């Protein structure tokens, strides 16, 4: 079913959604009444870019803050995460023999940074949908959009990716329209996903302007030929 929509323009299909659902959604009606179809598209694109720029700035501030916090650290006995549990998770790998005392300490800090980055990127998606509660599908969106989180694609089921689509389109929208709207809002050009549904693979780079996120080129340079694990 997704494949059938592969060839259609995500932008065009998405643009028709607010009108189709006009009777059912106050929000959609407001948006639809506020602008013609082309204008609505432009507005959405600008919003997307602004959101991405905001995220890039937040991440930059985040990493600077991390460095400063670690500079101030003098106490290595109190951790945000229990070392014994980290060690146990490490030991789950049968190949792991001995673990020095410093390894879980480093991991405690690394995991904290990981949780913070994942949450920050997920919250970006929450705000895009004008919600105040971070949900599982926000995490799915963050995983999809971030290359270094590819190893998590199996942790976040595909259903949550669908929720990502449905969550942004007013209730009552037909599945076909929902599927068509998927690539437009959530997979900006330049952030090619790996191991995601085929309909997604066919869209990046085509209809959208380059992703302004400054961090992306560094990752792409290191992995220019990204293997598709799902195919």
């Amino acid at each position, binding site marked *: 079913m997704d494949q059938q929509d592969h060839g259609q323009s995500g932008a065009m299909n998405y643009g028709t959604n607010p009108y189709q659902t006009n009777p059912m959604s106050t929000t959609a009606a407001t948006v639809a009444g506020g602008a013609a179809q082309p204008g609505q598209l432009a507005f959405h694109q600008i919003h997307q870019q602004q959101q991405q720029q905001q995220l890039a700035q937040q991440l930059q501030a985040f990493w600077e803050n991390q460095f400063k916090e670690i500079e101030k650290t003098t106490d290595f006995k109190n951790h945000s995460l229990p070392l014994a549990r980290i060690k146990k998770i490490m030991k789950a790998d049968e*190949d792991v023999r001995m673990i020095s005392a410093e390894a879980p300490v480093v991991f405690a800090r*690394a*995991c904290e940074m990981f949780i913070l980055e*994942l949450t920050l990127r997920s919250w970006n998606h929450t705000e895009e949908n004008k919600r105040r*509660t971070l949900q*599982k599908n926000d995490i799915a969106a963050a995983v999809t959009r971030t290359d*270094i989180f590819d190893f998590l694609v199996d*942790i976040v089921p595909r259903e949550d990716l669908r929720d990502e689509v449905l969550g942004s389109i007013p209730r009552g929208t037909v599945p076909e329209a929902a599927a068509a709207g998927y690539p437009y809002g959530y997979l900006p050009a330049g952030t090619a996903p790996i191991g995601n549904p085929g309909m997604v693979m066919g869209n990046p780079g085509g209809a959208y302007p380059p992703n302004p996120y400054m961090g992306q080129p560094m990752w792409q340079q290191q992995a220019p030929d990204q293997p598709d694990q799902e195919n």
Partner: protein
Amino acid sequence: MTEESPEEDHGSPGVAETNPGSPSSKTNNNNNNNKEQDRFLPIANVGRIMKKVLPGNGKISKDAKETVQECVSEFISFVTGEASDKCQREKRKTINGDDIIWAITTLGFEDYVAPLKVYLCKYRDTEGEKVNSPKQQQQRQQQQQIQQQNHHNYQFQEQDQNNNNMSCTSYISHHHPSPFLPVDHQPFPNIAFSPKSLQKQFPQQHDNNIDSIHW
């Protein structure tokens, strides 16, 4: 369930806590009965960390916390596997902090590397020659003794940090803390955010390892 109940009210998610993991760590370190639970880090700790980057009125669903719990365990296994492979290639039995940082670099988490190197460096300064001890429990006792002995050094370190954020590296360079060293003699007067710059300093840590110093 005990550790989860505090999170269910969602009354004021925006309030940050200092050293929030301490009480929880004590409780959870003694919990070895629930194997299922042991696969993940405590949801309370995870939730508290998540709240640090959310605005005051932001909320987190339980589903989201549980998903992040799974993601973190996967992250630990992912990095550990890479580090373990490296140790096997080099025919070493013990995974140390450098191996973890190397694996994190290899797996693409570049932004994590510089902060973690500084963190590990400072940790080793604090723990001295205990860095490679595999007996964690024994080391904890020794840590307490070292902490007491180094109380004054902590004060000097903190003073030094007010003048030079790279004091940890300075200590490595001299192979011992030098609280009386004039500021203008510090070999690294500026903060080095560049991974390349830190990479130049990083080999010194190995020297420090070899020439372990008794504080």
